[in-house]
């Protein structure tokens, strides 16, 4: 029922606008509000705070169905839930949760997660943004980059990862601090010229002597790094769902086209060269789905899922890569034209091997888990 409902919604509301929004590189407030009306923000948050109280499997199915139609809108939802709402939901105080979650879950506002910096991508520990405690206020200085849902008129708050001191072992002490958009000294600039996810909102954030109350600290001081790692573990499931959904959407487009398009008097799907491509797509998509759903089941059961989440993220992204490549090939020349949608999938795919932990980082996580580097 969940899948059918989101599929109907995505095909009726998002699909007709996907090409135009992508072309104009426009983030649609209207569609974001409609997605909020569907309850797509706060999917796993308890009903007490205005969420839907669903499990991670349901969340991933919702993201999968959005991604089957359009990457940008699945990105808005995945980032909204995993990165925007997630940290506040998991680490926020009762007061912070009561203040922010209901508005975030209703989609009235969006939250973002300020982690990546110009000089700190995969090496998140190299963050330079600082927050110093002065007279009961955090003073935030630094900048963040590639931050989803951070600059639109809906963007209301950012969870900023900042260096708040030095630990006894000499490493940086990291903490997460809630900084509302519009706080003096906080500027959010929309980034344009993206290859992919062009209808999602991506921003560059600047903090210059930006002051927020001490109570805006999320969780405990010094827990920022752990919070970030956990947030990314959860986020990986949704990114994997985007790969799975994108692969499914591209496969369906290719299959439909392959059965309709005739060359040499026969549908091109009936040529074995293409039929085998489609068979491989269907097979790898099914394998990816099994892996992701298993990861969700482990997460929902409260069991360790970090390794399989990394595997699912890596694998779903790679499956989508192979699927979109072959799908465009089946479309031939038409596949290169915007009108046929498939080229958007081809571009949108590329983020998935880079964002929320590159494929290389996933392999580091996996190889650590399987004990390649000793105990």
């Amino acid at each position, binding site marked *: 029922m*969940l899948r*059918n409902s989101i599929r109907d919604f995505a095909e009726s509301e998002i699909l007709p606008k996907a090409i135009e929004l992508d072309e104009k590189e426009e983030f649609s407030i209207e569609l974001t509000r409609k997605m909020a009306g569907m*309850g797509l923000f706060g999917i796993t948050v308890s009903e007490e705070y205005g969420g*839907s109280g669903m499990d991670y499997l*349901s969340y991933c199915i919702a993201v999968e169905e959005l991604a089957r139609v359009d990457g940008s809108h699945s990105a808005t939802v995945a980032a909204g839930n995993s990165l925007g709402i997630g940290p506040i939901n998991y680490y926020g105080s009762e007061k912070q949760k009561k203040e922010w979650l209901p508005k975030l879950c209703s989609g009235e506002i969006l939250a973002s997660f300020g982690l990546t910096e110009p000089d700190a991508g995969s090496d998140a520990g190299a963050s330079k943004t600082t927050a110093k405690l002065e007279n009961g206020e955090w003073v935030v200085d630094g900048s963040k980059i590639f931050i989803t849902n951070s600059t639109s008129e809906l963007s209301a708050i950012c969870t900023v990862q900042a260096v708040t001191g030095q630990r006894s072992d000499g490493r940086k002490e990291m903490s997460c601090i809630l900084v509302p958009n519009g706080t003096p000294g906080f500027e959010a600039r929309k980034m344009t010229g993206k290859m992919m996810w062009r209808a999602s909102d991506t921003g560059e954030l600047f903090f210059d002597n930006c002051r927020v109350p001490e109570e805006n600290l999320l969780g405990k001081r010094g827990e920022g790094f752990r919070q970030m790692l956990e947030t990314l573990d959860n986020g990986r499931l949704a990114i994997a769902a985007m790969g799975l959904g994108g692969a499914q959407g591209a496969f369906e487009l290719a299959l439909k086209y392959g059965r309709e398009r005739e060359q040499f008097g026969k549908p091109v799907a009936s040529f074995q060269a293409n039929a085998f491509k489609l068979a491989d797509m269907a097979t790898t998509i099914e394998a990816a789905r099994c892996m992701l759903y298993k990861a969700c089941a482990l997460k929902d059961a409260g069991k360790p899922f970090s390794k399989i989440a990394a595997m699912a993220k890596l694998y779903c992204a790679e499956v989508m890569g192979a699927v979109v490549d072959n799908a465009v090939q089946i479309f031939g020349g038409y596949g290169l034209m915007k009108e046929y949608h498939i080229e958007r999938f081809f571009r949108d795919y590329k983020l998935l091997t880079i964002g929320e932990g590159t494929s290389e980082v996933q392999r580091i996580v996996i190889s650590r888990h399987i004990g390649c580097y000793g105990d």
Partner: protein
Amino acid sequence: MKIIVLLKRVPDTEAKILINQEGTGIREDGVKFVINPHDEYGIEEGLKLREKLADGSKVTVVCAGPEEATEAIRTALAMGADDAVHVCDPKLADPNPFTVSEVLAKAIQAEGFDVIFCGKQAIDDDLAQVQSILAEKLDIPQVNNATAFEMAADCRSAKLSRRIEGGDEKIETSMPAIISCDKGLNEPRYASLPGIMKAKKKEIRKKSLADLGIAEVPGTGRSRVLKWLPLPKGGECRIVAAEETVDAVRELARLLREEAKVI
């Protein structure tokens, strides 16, 4: 106010329909089933009316169908209906419209009603009979193919439009009445995620024929489906070609007259 909405589970409009080997129905494996799209207009109109009245009115889904119809019923509850009655009985395996109407009438009478909404027809068998038989059984007016609905302030009558050839027909009916709904009446809402969660806790009252006080399956023998047959395969297509179009047309006319004998 007690608002009744009727629901039928039908194969998805895009499903590929194949006849089963015995010729007694369609093959259901691999076919996605949905709420009859016209019934969705009825559900939406019921929900809109409840929201407009905002006086504690209830929307109750009534469905006579197999066990598997539960999914469609839950979807209607996720859209926002309050509760449901599901008449589900092995004796209803192959019902005709008279049977369904009799069963629905009994279930609706047991519930009580102030207005009934349903789709103008089911998209599977396209019979469009239930609403009319039901109106007779309940002895209430029916308005079919409604494209606009406006309940009077005192809820004792309603104004409606129905699309007819070349224009709209405006109708006023007393209440209670049964309204069959057409495309254009409204835009059915989607089942939202919170709606889906809430639907899990809503009540579906399962009823057998015995529960409704029906001893014999009504309407048996009135009409019966003898056999289901697939559509005949299309015949061979011949293309009449000639250098000059006019010669092709002459040849076509000759073939139509002498071979096909249709002109």
